[in-house]
């Protein structure tokens, strides 16, 4: 699976567009960490294609190890189901809810016409009940489309660093 959707023109950090993308990604992270899941869901286009591939350990000549098989394989309906599930009182993996912190860094923005690719490193920490931290790290590759003076996410690839997920489960959202 190729990481990069488009090879667009770099958008430099001192530009207005870069600033708007960065602010968008930071606000998205804040929505997740403050349990505003419906507002988060509203950031995605109706035809959102959201994938988290399984990563395998491979030699360098065989690529990065991302496979055509997912840890998550979501569309709008299934993301909505995940959010609706969290709103029930019975989603035990998140009831009581995990406390998460989504750290977003190393943001690279490229533009190709109307389409914007935003690549960012993520570190998601999670603690729940009286338990220690769990951590998920990797890179997110998003395709953003204009939506008024903001954006919507039309495609997301969540590229994990781990081949063995050590965070109990993937009940938190990325």
């Amino acid at each position, binding site marked *: 699976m190729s990481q990069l959707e488009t090879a667009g023109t770099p958008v430099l950090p001192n530009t207005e567009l870069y600033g708007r993308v960065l602010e968008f990604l930071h606000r998205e992270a804040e929505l997740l960490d403050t349990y505003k899941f419906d507002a988060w869901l509203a950031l995605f286009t109706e035809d959102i294609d959201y994938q*988290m591939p*399984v990563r*395998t*350990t*491979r*030699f360098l000549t*065989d690529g990065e*190890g991302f*496979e*055509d*098989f*997912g*840890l*998550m*394989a*979501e*569309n709008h*309906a*299934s993301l*909505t*189901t*995940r959010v*609706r*599930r969290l709103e*029930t*009182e*019975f*989603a*035990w*993996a*998140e009831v009581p809810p995990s406390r998460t912190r989504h750290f977003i860094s190393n943001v690279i923005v490229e533009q190709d016409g109307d389409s914007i690719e935003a690549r960012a490193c993520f570190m998601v920490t999670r603690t729940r009940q009286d338990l220690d931290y769990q951590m998920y790290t990797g890179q997110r590759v998003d395709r953003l489309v204009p939506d008024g003076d903001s954006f919507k996410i039309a495609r997301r690839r969540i590229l994990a660093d781990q*081949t*063995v*997920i*050590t*965070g*109990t*489960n*993937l*009940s938190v959202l990325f």
Partner: protein
Amino acid sequence: MTATPTAPSTRLRNGDALEEIVRPQEGLISRRIFTDPEVFELELERIFGKGWFFIGHDSEIPEPGDLVTRPCGIDPVVLIRDDEGVVHAFLNSCRHRGMRIARTDRDNATFLKCPYHGWSYKNNGELLNAACENHYGEGELVKEELGLIPVAQLGSYHGLWFGTWNEHAPPLDEWLGDMRWYMDIIFGRTGGLEIMGPPQIWEVDTAWKFATDNFTDNFHVFSSHHSLVELGMLPNNPDFAAYGHMIVPGNGHILHFVQGEPGNDDYRGLGLSHDLRAKFDEFLTPEQKSIADDHGYSAGTIWPNFHWLQLISAGDMEAHEEAFLNLRMETPITPTRTRMWSWLAVDKDATPEYRKKVYETYVRTFGPSGIFDQDDMENWEDCTRANIGPAARRYTLHHKMGLKRATATDWPGPGVAYPDSYGEMTQRSWYAQWLTSMTGGNGNGRGA
């Protein structure tokens, strides 16, 4: 004088006998066996050192040289198809200093070359070259004796490869016994299955036996997965998964066939599409076909830690229900930490559209992110934490449901069958085999 072989001690260091703290016939299982390091050490030797373990499927290594790296028990192996097409499972460890030989999850290799000092092995395990051979004296390096270490026995059924480190274990066919008849229904129903993609792998802070216990437990579904009832994705009926049978075919293997609520025709033909169901006639006996036709769900366990789940589910609130076949395995790392493996299998003849639906339904509901499976891991972890303390371990867990349940008289398959898929008969048979393995010499005596 030759020493008389003695059966392994069944007493733990504090004097408790395993037979006293695990009493399957009474449905009483000590909490202690789930977290005690002493019990865990004995399990590594008497269960993981002696039983048969799933390693991988034929379809994961289709070409000569293809390999995957996996555990057999808990020891790492490389499952590899050699240049002649013969499949081997070798300890993934160099004969020189024990360096890991195959160092990726999957690969294709004619030779396996050790990074440490450069010994290199053919893909049939033979040692081909050792570095600096000219520095070895006469008789110091006998290459014929230094091939990669194979598992003691390797066997396959319906493309599923199993290995054991125990040369005295009964052959795989004999060990699977009556379970093969049921494996035909799941793995042979349409002429063959293949694994889609690599396994999902994740680690859970649980005793491995809680995950195992869960796979033959149908009555947790309504409570554990109640969020799905709320969303309308599961029937609002606590008994909905009770319609069916549980079967004890012997040797600790266990299974369930569930019909689903009466009157719902989705829960027939294992939930497969009609073009696939049409093949039952060709590959199944009339008795096997009648079971496949009449049931929607099946959960099976090959003793001790390999499972299947043939399930029907919707991937989201808007989707139609699809059948999928999930293969699972638990590998213990410590008494209270377990590596989970999960594969998706699909019928070889399934159409691309069907495969896509099956894939999406599976990933959204099962595996580490699955909206069903997530909550199971929460249960296994909390069970583990709450059973570890000195107070808890003095008490037993309750496995009494169906102690007096009469057996089914009209079940067309082998083994002991019980009507009703809610009950702890299968769990008790699993713990009976556990006890037999932990106390019975070669670890492969027959359980109840």
